[in-house]
């Protein structure tokens, strides 16, 4: 992969913008991952709840 020469210059010349760019990418990914992680946690909890309830329902139905 050949680095664009302009990109090479960039890192020397404009470190001023770097914190905002890094911040934008970091917040974006962290927020997305946190949100997806939260939804997954809820999903897992609900799946457990459904299987427990289904078991109870089957037991009751079998009586």
């Amino acid at each position, binding site marked *: *992969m*050949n*680095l*664009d*020469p*302009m*990109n*090479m*210059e*960039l890192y020397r*010349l*404009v470190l*001023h*913008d*770097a914190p*905002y*760019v890094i*911040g*934008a*990418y970091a*917040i*974006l990914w962290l*927020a*997305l991952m946190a*949100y*997806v992680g939260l*939804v*997954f946690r*809820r*999903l897992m909890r*609900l*799946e457990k*709840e*459904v299987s427990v*309830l*289904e078991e*109870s*329902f089957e037991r*009751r139905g079998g009586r």
Partner: protein
Amino acid sequence: MRQLKIALVLLLIGGVLTTAAFVMAFTTAEMQRFGTVTVPEPIDTAFPLQQVTEAGYTYERPWFSQKIFYFHVPVAEASFLVFAVAAFFSIRFLMKRRKEFDTKARLAMETAIVFVMLTMITGILWTRAAWGVWWEWEPRLTTYFIMTLMMIGYFVLRNSIEDEERRATYGAVFGIIAFINAPISFFITRLIPSSHPVVFQSGFATSNLIPFILGQIGMLMVGYAIYAIRASEERLEERVDVLKDALEG
């Protein structure tokens, strides 16, 4: 379960594509330039020397903050598209009066608001880096902010109504009205003078276009995946309610 599996695959592919876009944005993508920088001594740089004056040597300035564009724009466009899906299901609900369309509209609106918030955050950071201020009341930012407030208003409205039928109807009507803001916000930079950059107005180098397209496709996949995962969660919640009712009955 099948929808959840598809969602997980799309989430994975979306993650790979957006990561590839991220890497390309910082390596192979051509550096954009914006404005000038004047230094007292000549420097060894790939940036073209524009002029030499008493103030010093003026070079074209690299536009590092433009790198935010490779994620900010895909996230923003995903927010518009998911919002359009919410408006579509709101219309479907008003036509058919079926609860599933109201649920789909609400889930799409919830996904859209995640993307809207991320657009706002990345946009604010770009504004600070590029314009030196955290916020400016210019047309794109103002209309997008109004759109954000209306989306928040959608959930406030829904939470304030107890009757399920009325909540769904009012939510659908409000969602459709709120969506009117989306095309206004999208096209406003093309219709009236605005300091917000307009994508594709001045053409795009292939090295910039590839990460942008990858980021766009990846972000849409992530958007659909989030929506589908939330839909699976919703179905499980409904199943829990049905089972609880059956056990109690």
